[in-house]
């Protein structure tokens, strides 16, 4: 019982000094003079604006990636006490004193520094020697492009960190699988794999490729577990369930958690509100929420409403009409009805108000009690300011001649009768007797006479239509498309009998009261969908490049130039490492195919355990390179050199693996081995030398003379900035 007293309490600690030393030099190389330059460098201008939004808790939408990366950067700002007040508009602008540059850049720099010891651990866990492991770590340490990228407020180094963490923890998990499955250690590494994967995806969508790679390797291993007939069926099932939970369910939950925190933080309305649906906007503080609070929920006959198009492409807009009529004859000679224009207008305006009228009655006010409009009811829409009725007829629309013109009816007494009855079709109804609700209901207006559907064609009208967007009656297509769907955004019950009073009423703001809440899942799915579909228009950049330029480092990016001297920072890799890493990948592939073919003919060059080690190293390192590189050939967005860095990291890990393999298995004699070692040492020295030569461009701390800069321009395609004096 008191057994512990009979034994002394022992603490044994093993410290791998290699690791400690590597971590220390990693930190030194990444953190040295971190706050220099005290100016906006390259894409900091892009991430910075989002950090400011976080600090001010204003909602924004960024299509470039999920929010976790932005949140991590913002955490740096929060820890440094940043108040978000800085105008992020120009690369090279000096930071004002309220911007905590050091703490903003700290997290990427730490991730970059910790990647160095992690490279060591990965190669060691793959079963290679400490020498190879140290080599891998040193190569990552002196790789200039990685240093540059991690010293700035950018996300690639954080992505690389989580990529490596996912691979490392999977390897640790794998190795503990052999000894003690279901031990705490086993669980820890398994869960960490899942979390690291979802962090990588949460930083950039490209993280998903590493996740898929890890999943693939895990699936192969799980298949071996299934085939292991020493395990009972129940145990196999436990193994599979544990993996599914940790590698599939958990990452999804963590990913959702990022969005939950994101939406929790960003609770105020901001400049990107317009892109979101009315319901989403209403869930943010300020903005639409202030306007729509207290609106009556159910639309009734006599309600005054504004109708927003749900699709909102090319811009979000509201159904609109005004005094002007369609021109008698268009430029191309076609005729129009010459009736009042109906358009879609992207700004709030008193002319966006419409009154829902019962065709059988004349009055434009809401009864007491209000009579709600239901799915399938026939309504007329009266334009509030002109009291004309929304109408469509068999006249070709101005710019989409296959569809019908939509107008507000003017009686010219020319035997063209009004056709102003519309059947209400609630798209997201739960039953056929659903009531039309403000904001929540998505409705279509089906024309009773011609069964055309009110649709936003999205084409801007010419000058006569004030460049507002065309609205048409779509005859041909009757399927579902968001451009035919509208929702009520602002709403009030009309009270005024007289037109003059009504105009005053339309000008007055809507009243204020309760707020409406969307569920988290609804907000998440809408936000995620908009992030994936939002388009950035600019596809050209001075430093953009193609994937083919990356392998041999045929391109660079000038990040920053000192305003007076010619000190400058470039994203420029260590050519020796890039070239030899690519060569190593090629050698690996050739050797792998050679061994594979010979094994198929029952010639085993490698012992079984060596072969498995060789395959696993290739699957993770060469595979990691391939999955992080090849998909870029299919992408249509603007690409930059820094997109290659995750792939490069995996490629660098492969280098020492291949070198050790050559030395162990292909060098036949001791002499050859010594020669090879000497070669490797010479090669590594040259890599160090190159790294040192490029150091001024990596840290930007020293101003070089034009001739020195010219001497550094080793490739014609490199763009190094030389000042003309």
């Amino acid at each position, binding site marked *: 019982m008191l057994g512990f007293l009979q034994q002394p309490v022992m603490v044994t600690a093993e410290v791998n000094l290699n690791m400690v030393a590597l971590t220390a030099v990693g930190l030194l190389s990444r953190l040295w003079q971190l706050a220099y330059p005290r100016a906006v460098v390259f894409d900091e201008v892009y991430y910075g604006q989002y950090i400011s939004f976080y600090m001010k808790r204003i909602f924004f939408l960024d299509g470039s990636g999920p929010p976790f990366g932005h949140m991590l950067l913002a955490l740096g700002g929060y820890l440094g006490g940043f108040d978000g007040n800085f105008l992020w508009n120009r690369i090279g602008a000096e930071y004002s004193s309220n911007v905590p540059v050091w703490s903003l850049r700290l997290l990427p720099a730490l991730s970059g520094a910790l990647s160095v010891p992690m490279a060591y651990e990965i190669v060691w866990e793959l079963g290679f020697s400490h020498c190879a492991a140290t080599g891998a770590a040193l190569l990552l340490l002196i790789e200039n492009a990685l240093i540059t990228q991690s010293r700035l407020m950018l996300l690639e180094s954080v992505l690389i960190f989580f990529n490596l963490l996912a691979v490392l923890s999977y390897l640790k998990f794998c190795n503990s699988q052999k000894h003690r499955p279901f031990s705490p250690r086993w669980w820890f590494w398994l869960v960490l794999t899942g979390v690291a994967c979802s962090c990588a995806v949460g930083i950039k969508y490209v993280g998903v490729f590493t996740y898929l790679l890890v999943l693939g390797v895990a699936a192969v291993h799980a298949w071996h577990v299934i085939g292991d*007939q020493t395990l009972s069926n129940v145990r196999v099932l436990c193994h599979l369930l544990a993996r599914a939970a940790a590698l599939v369910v958990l990452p999804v939950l963590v990913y959702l958690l990022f969005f939950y925190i994101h939406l929790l933080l960003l609770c105020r309305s901001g400049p990107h509100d317009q892109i979101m649906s009315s319901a989403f906007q209403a869930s943010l503080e300020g903005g639409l929420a202030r306007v729509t609070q207290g609106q009556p929920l159910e639309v009734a006959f006599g309600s005054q409403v504004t109708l927003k198009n749900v699709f909102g*492409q090319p811009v979000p807009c509201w159904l609109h009409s005004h005094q002007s009529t369609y021109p008698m004859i268009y430029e191309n000679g076609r005729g129009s009805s010459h009736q009042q224009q109906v358009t879609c207008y992207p700004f709030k305006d008193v002319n966006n108000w419409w009154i829902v009228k019962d065709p059988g009655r004349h009055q434009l006010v809401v009864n007491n009690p209000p009579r709600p409009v239901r799915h399938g009811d026939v309504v007329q829409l009266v334009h509030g300011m002109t009291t004309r009725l929304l109408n469509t007829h068999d006249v070709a629309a101005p710019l989409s001649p296959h569809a019908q013109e939509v107008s507000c009816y003017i009686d010219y007494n020319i035997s063209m009768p009004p056709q102003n009855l519309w059947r209400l079709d609630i798209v997201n109804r739960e039953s056929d007797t659903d009531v039309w609700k403000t904001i929540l209901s998505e409705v279509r207006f089906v024309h009773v006479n011609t069964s055309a559907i009110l649709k936003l064609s999205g084409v801007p009208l010419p000058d006569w239509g004030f460049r507002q967007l065309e609205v048409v009656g779509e005859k041909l297509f009757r*399927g579902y498309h968001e451009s035919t769907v509208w929702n009520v955004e602002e709403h009030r019950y009309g009270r005024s009998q007289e037109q003059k009073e009504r105009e005053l009423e339309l000008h007055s703001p809507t009243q204020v009261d309760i707020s409406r809440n969307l569920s988290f899942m609804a907000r998440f799915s809408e936000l995620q969908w908009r992030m994936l579909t939002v388009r950035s228009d600019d596809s050209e950049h001075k430093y953009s490049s193609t994937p083919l330029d990356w392998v041999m480092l045929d391109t660079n990016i000038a990040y920053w130039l000192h305003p007076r001297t010619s000190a400058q920072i470039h994203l420029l890799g260590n050519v020796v490492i890039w070239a030899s890493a690519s060569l190593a990948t090629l050698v690996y592939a050739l050797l792998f195919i050679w061994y594979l073919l010979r094994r198929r003919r029952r010639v085993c060059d490698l012992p079984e355990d060596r072969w498995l080690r060789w395959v696993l190293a290739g699957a993770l390192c060469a595979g990691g390179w391939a999955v992080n590189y090849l998909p870029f050939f299919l992408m249509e967005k603007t690409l930059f050199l820094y997109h290659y860095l995750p792939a490069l990291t995996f490629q660098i890990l492969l280098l020492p693996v291949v070198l050790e393999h050559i030395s162990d298995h292909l060098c036949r004699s001791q002499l050859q081995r010594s020669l090879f070692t000497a070669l490797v040492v010479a090669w590594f020295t040259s890599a160090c030398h190159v790294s040192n030569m490029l150091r001024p461009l990596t840290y930007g701390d020293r101003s070089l003379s034009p001739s020195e800069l010219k001497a550094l321009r080793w490739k014609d395609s490199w763009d190094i900035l030389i000042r003309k004096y």
Partner: protein
Amino acid sequence: MCGTTVCRVLSHVLLDNSLGDGLADTILVCFMEMRKEVQRGWDETHFGKMGSYYINRTFFFDVHPPLGKMLIGLAGYLSGYDGTFLFQKPGDNYEHHSYMGMRGFCAFLGSMLIPLAYLTVLELSRSLSAALLTAALLTFDTGCLTLSQYILLDPILMFFIMAAMLSMVKYNSCANRPFSAPWWFWLSLTGVNLAGALGVKFVGLFIILQVGWNTLSDLWHLFGDLSLSMVTLGKHLTARILCLIVLPLALYIATYAVHFMVLNKSGPGDGFFSSAFQARLSGNNLHNASIPEHLAYGSVITVKNLRMAIGYLHSHRHFYPEGVGARQQQVTTYLHKDYNNLWIIKKHNSNSDPLDPSLPVEFVRHGDIIRLEHKETSRNLHSHYHEAPLTRKHYQVTGYGINGSGDSNDFWRIEVINRKFGNRIKVLRSRIRLIHLITGCVLGSSGKVLPKWGWEQMEVTCTPYLKETLSSIWNVEDHINPKLPNISLEVLQPSFPEIMLESHMVMIRGNNGLKPKDNEFTSKPWHWPINFQGLRFSGANDTDFRVYLLGNPVVWWLNLLSIALYVLSASVFAVAVQRGAHLPVEVEGLSQVLLRGGGQLLFGWMMHYFPFFLMGRVLYFHHYFPAMLFSSMLTGLLWDTLLRLCAWSLASYPLARCVHVLGILSLLLGTAYSFYLFHPLAYGMVGPLAQDPRSPMAGLRWLESWDF
């Protein structure tokens, strides 16, 4: 006992007659109402017209390879169609024109799909009932039927895909008799069909990948067989390279050779191709023309952009409107030939007339500083630091100056790509860039269409990004200089490999250019397997005769269910085998059919479906049909196997065998009945639209998105 015997007899009678019947049926079904409909539907305007082009031998451009259209043209030619029908807009009547040959040809290939699928499944499963079920699914699918009724590329494409699949499966089964006559026959037939599939549409690539994968795994299997010597393995490898790479490639190139030989007259496709290419076409003004070879000062030239469908550098007497850069003369690109495309090359520093006969001829060289004067308006090509009308990051290009005198913003340096300084510039062959001297930007066209004020011609800009993209590279096409000797363009004609390469580049770019526009209703790949939405072939209003391309929902939803069921059952078997379970002999056989045969079909479905998710171009519902063929074959094979398994597990009960026969029969009758319900979609319907409750089709509108 008695009951089972009756069932077996019944099934045998049914199955033995099936092949002949199935074939006859489908051909009948396809041709039945074709004669009635003399209006042209949908894409017929497109491919029918191309058939006419072949008959008239006029050159045209299309994003698909030529074989399919050539076959259509041939069928038309053989059946006496004279190529005079205009194919202007959908819904025109054919009147007296003989269109039956072309339609009949497509319908015949479309109906051949059913026997091909029948034989493939028979070979994979060795079960008549599975094959019969597949044949029935395809016969009674309204979508396949509609697609085979018209002059389209899809029936031809699907025919080659299925034929390649069948011959691949056949040569797989000959594996135990390598190098025998049937082995060679099926292997080379696979190659021929692959060439056919790729020659009709580029999506034929998917079946090539499938066959390639099959061949690799086959070779891998052989390679592991230590009883085979390296020499035998070498023979195997060579045979496959010959039949599956060399033969298809030769045939594919041959179709292009025929294509270029037949189309030797100038036509609507000229503008898409480079100047050198156009020189081949009789009727084109570059054909047999003789012009001076090297550019000299004083030459009158037209300048053509190298990117496809951009056209010639152009200017006209209209200014940029107020608010769009400087109010100077517009410079655009224009696809048609016109006097306003003519420019004069002048020296930057002297305005003397270089055509003065007393002066010696001075050639323009790489790196020279020149001015380009617009011949009709005598204004110089000019650029300056104003933003371009549409591409805001580029500079505006204008016509500036009076009678050829302007300012230093009119100076351009002319450079030939991949050339050192000092060389002369060749007409047609030299690829040149024009670099603005003062701003350092490059003349290019953004390819964006200007609004009304620019006559919907394309924007020309000066781009500060010095990347070598085709849109900033030009060549000189027409060249007039009375002081220089004309040489015949024959020497400039490109060689056949160059023509091949160019036409492929143009086709690929054309395909990439087919992007969906904003607010356009486009079909998404996930719509397809659930039969979410059809495609109107002809007619839109309730008075029209309407044909609507929509799969038979019973067949399609059964296919969808079967894919899920297949994945489930195959993984159960795979896990059982991996766990070392010992299966009884019958089940072992069935699981082999399911895993091997079904696996090939599932792989085929995936290969023909998933790549569409990655494509950026406009997609249509009919792109799914090749995948649908594979999925129907999988359905046939799966249900037959599952029913056999059921019958086996119930073997202890009397009448157990009937489970199989009854199951197959009910599936057959179910699909046949659904075809009876939905056949108006394919054979055409008149009357109110289906959303109208009075319509006879109203009860069949099972999804709201179906708009027939």
